């Protein structure tokens, strides 16, 4: 059974001890805001050192790349964005990494990324075409250092055979019928965003007064809650959850890929708004084989490879000619589909200042501890 996508506790806990780097990470100097190192040419310059969430691309696609280009793909995994960042900050060298948008901002600001010349990618027009959102996304001006990978949405999944009173609102995470069988994602950004949307606040709010309200809302949910967990797929499959705060692709995998009877599961994108975020491919500045990495990214942009990956991961890849295949995959649960136009919204997780992150963390800690 595949573990939940973003929550991946399995990897998370196992790697927990190893993701904390040595003291090289503790430093006092301000990171550089140097210009991007020039893009590499797309040609084989060694084996590919690949750094991603576990189980995140179809194995057949990775195998195909190795055979076509005669290189090996050496895979390492991370369990969290913090873990990924800590490894990079400690100086580990990888050729291609898959950060969530706000981490692209951070890595780029700190001079940790190499430029990616779109002209080197034969399939660049699949993501960078006239009018594409990704020509100039909020997290990377001009997509100079990143290429879009997947997009995802957060909403509410539920068991139609157990719960009949869903309303299309985040309030469904307080559903009486499912009291004691409701799960909220064990994720600071997602949990705070859910309460913020319910209150009509910005998903990134760090305003102390608003955070107090968010805390009250989340604590009021505890009477209904079974647990905080990011293992959304397994909690649903095992029957522990009747209503689950969950990620769109995890839901689709659960419904289309695992469930005996898909009609007993449904998903909604709440009316108050839902967090929509995206992941990207980046090449670290210290990559030893940036040329192979360029080829790899180009290879993943081929529509047929994107389709294979989508059928494995159940998250949409914003590759133009592959999007119809995803719409087809999600046709029974349109709420899991993400139109490119949906990306133009305010509910993205932005890079916050440390004091803001810590204020939010303190609220989240108090909620979980209470």
């Amino acid at each position, binding site marked *: 059974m595949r573990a939940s996508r973003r929550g991946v506790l399995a990897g998370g806990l196992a790697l927990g001890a190893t993701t904390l780097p040595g003291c090289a990470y503790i430093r006092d100097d301000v990171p550089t805001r140097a210009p991007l190192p020039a893009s590499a040419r797309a040609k084989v310059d060694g084996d590919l050192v690949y750094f991603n969430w576990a189980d995140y691309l179809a194995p057949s696609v990775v195998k195909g790349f190795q055979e076509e280009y005669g290189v090996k793909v050496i895979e390492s995994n991370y369990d969290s964005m*913090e873990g990924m960042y800590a490894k990079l900050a400690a100086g580990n060298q990888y050729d291609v990494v898959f950060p969530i948008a706000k981490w692209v901002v951070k890595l780029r600001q700190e001079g940790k990324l190499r430029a990616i010349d779109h002209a080197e990618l034969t399939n660049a027009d699949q993501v960078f075409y006239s009018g594409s959102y990704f020509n100039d996304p909020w997290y990377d001006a001009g997509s100079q250092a990143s290429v879009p990978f997947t997009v995802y949405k957060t909403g509410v999944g539920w068991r139609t055979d157990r719960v009949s009173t869903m309303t299309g609102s985040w309030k469904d995470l307080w559903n009486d019928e499912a009291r*004691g069988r409701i799960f909220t994602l064990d994720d600071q950004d997602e949990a705070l965003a859910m309460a913020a949307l319910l209150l009509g606040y910005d998903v990134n709010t760090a305003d102390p007064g608003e955070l107090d309200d968010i805390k009250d809302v989340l604590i009021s949910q505890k009477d209904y809650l079974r647990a905080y967990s990011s293992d959304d797929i397994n909690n649903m499959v095992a029957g522990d959850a009747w209503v689950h705060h969950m990620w769109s692709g995890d839901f689709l995998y659960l419904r289309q890929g695992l469930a005996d009877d898909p009609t007993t599961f449904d998903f909604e994108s709440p009316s108050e708004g839902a967090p929509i975020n995206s992941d990207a491919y980046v090449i670290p500045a210290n990559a030893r084989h940036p040329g192979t990495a360029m080829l790899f990214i180009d290879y993943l942009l081929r529509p047929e490879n994107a389709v294979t990956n989508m059928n494995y991961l159940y998250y949409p890849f914003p590759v133009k000619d592959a999007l119809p295949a995803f719409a087809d995959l999600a046709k029974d649960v349109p709420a899991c589909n993400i139109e490119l136009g949906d990306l133009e919204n305010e509910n993205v997780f932005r890079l916050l200042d440390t004091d803001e992150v*810590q204020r939010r963390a303190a609220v989240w800690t108090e909620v979980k501890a209470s």
Partner: protein
Amino acid sequence: MTTVEQGDVHTGTRRSAQRTSLWGWLLALPTAWMVTFFVSSMALIVMLSFGRTTNDGYPAFAASTANYRAIWNEVYLELFLRSLLYALATVVISALIAYPVAYAIALHGGRYKNALIAAIVVPFFASYLVRMYAWKALLSDDGLVNSGLRASGISDGVTFLNTPWAVVGGLVYGFVVFMILPVYASLERLDTSLIEAGKDLYHGPVRTFVGVTLPATRAGLYGGALLVFLPALGDFVSAQLLGGASTYMMGNLVQQQFAEGQNWPLGSALTVGMMAALTVLMVAYLRATATRGGER
């Protein structure tokens, strides 16, 4: 550690002096290892507990007591007490499980003793995490146990997961072997003629056990209690995988500071604070047992 003491005691002859220096050399490597990987990392944590986080999210050294003021918080105290309670429950339940198991193997295992001990130890070679996931599969609402209960008509299903009991159960399952082994070792060493003597002195089996066997194996129980208590108190896996909305433990709190919270200095201060509290408890415990040992 005992070898060092022996060396100190027998310094009279040349031969034992040589042995002492040999032991000294042999100890150099583990000492270097401990200093490099244990003492220095502890020192880093202590130093960082006075640190701060830069605006770019990097932990940095400083001379601030803000983290220690921050951990003086009602919510954290409550968490500490909850963790203490879970860890103590784990010790008690582990002892209740471990003692009969160790007793049966040590006194009635016969030639299967080693095989039985191996049967207990081998499953612990599998990752703790994997075993927790197995628990989830067994105990979930539609899991094997509940399916069995429903099929046999015993019950409509029991909510095992996401309760404090599930957390304690996970901890017991994770650490009970640390109780079985020392208790087994002390029972192995037990002179069975003592038990016979106890019976001869008109004790029934219960009184023999309470008056003879149990006191003679106290050291094993104490050792086991310590070995179970410490990892249980700092654990975060069980609460994260098997716990509910209100079973957060100290380990989870510390782990969160190092991950999403982006607050390594606070995490370090929590670690140091917890170690300080544990040291106080431990010293009190050792003094109490030392006194009792002296009475024997």
